[in-house]
């Protein structure tokens, strides 16, 4: 390949990687409302898990997840001072059945459950604090 063509390929590679990064940054962590009827149960998440009276925030992690500690902090600080909202954390590397059923490919994935366990919102690849806050506010007014 001629050096000039090779440099053009290089420029295209850098441009494509930059585009992918910008796309990822725009989408990561956005908390999206879910209207489906997909549910999870307390037992499915773990023996200690009890849903909150108004709702539950579930953090799905893996041991190699770089953004999970940040999502954990976000959940902790957004839940502080709120009544009736429980939280739970599941290591998906031990629960591949759950990863398959919920179609989780990225961690952290955060689920906001209504009081009956219906998935009301979901965020992947990070967690936007403002998005989580508005979902929690919505839970507080609808339930």
């Amino acid at each position, binding site marked *: *390949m*001629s*050096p000039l*063509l*090779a*440099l053009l*390929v*290089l420029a295209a*590679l*850098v441009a*494509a*990687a*930059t585009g*992918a*990064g910008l796309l*990822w*940054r725009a989408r*990561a962590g956005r908390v999206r409302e879910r209207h489906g009827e997909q549910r999870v149960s307390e037992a499915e998440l773990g023996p200690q898990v009890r849903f909150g009276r108004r709702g539950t925030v579930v953090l799905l992690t*893996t*041991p*190699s*997840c*770089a*953004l999970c*500690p*940040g999502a954990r902090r976000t959940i*902790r600080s957004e839940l502080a001072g709120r009544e009736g909202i429980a939280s739970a954390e599941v290591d*998906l*590397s031990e629960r*591949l059945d759950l*990863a*398959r059923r919920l179609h*989780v*490919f*990225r*961690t952290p994935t955060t689920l906001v459950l209504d009081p009956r366990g219906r998935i009301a919102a979901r965020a992947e*690849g990070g967690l936007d604090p403002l998005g989580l806050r508005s979902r929690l506010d919505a839970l507080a007014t609808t339930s």
Partner: protein
Amino acid sequence: MSSTPAGQAPARAGIDPRGPRFVASITALLLLVDVLLGLIGPAAARSGTDWLLPALPLAQRAGDPAFVLLAVLAALFAWGALAGVQRGPFALLFRAAVRPRLRGPAELEDPRPPTFAQGVGLVVTLAGLVLQLAGVPYALPAAAAAAFVAAFLNAAFGYCLGCEMYLLLQRLRPRSSAAAG
């Protein structure tokens, strides 16, 4: 990590998250140079209408500068994957020369995810080296380009592609072995 309840085992020592990104910046630059060397070298060359690479003796496939540089980078990935991402040579450079000039980090990070990602980088670069030895045209620059994209996303956006591969790789494993693990 800082709010680990007392009484629990102390959290693993966190690392400055800028360390892996510094390492990724240097790695990305070297990988980009390697893609260029690969594209202008025998991996992407034709002799007449045929690919040049399969016609070359093994020593020349391995003597390609792109091959040598990628072998060095694979060794660096292996170092980071085995010793931990915070103990590779560029990480030591970061700690000795860069970090003292920076303010303290806003938060510390678990070293396991970026260390796992070093292993993913090792697998990708090794695949490129093996395929080049096998005489597959374009395999080496393609592998270097894939590793470049991952390192670039980490350096420029703080996005660890290799870390997210973990769940994907686990999910691709057959159900029986996954249930056992």
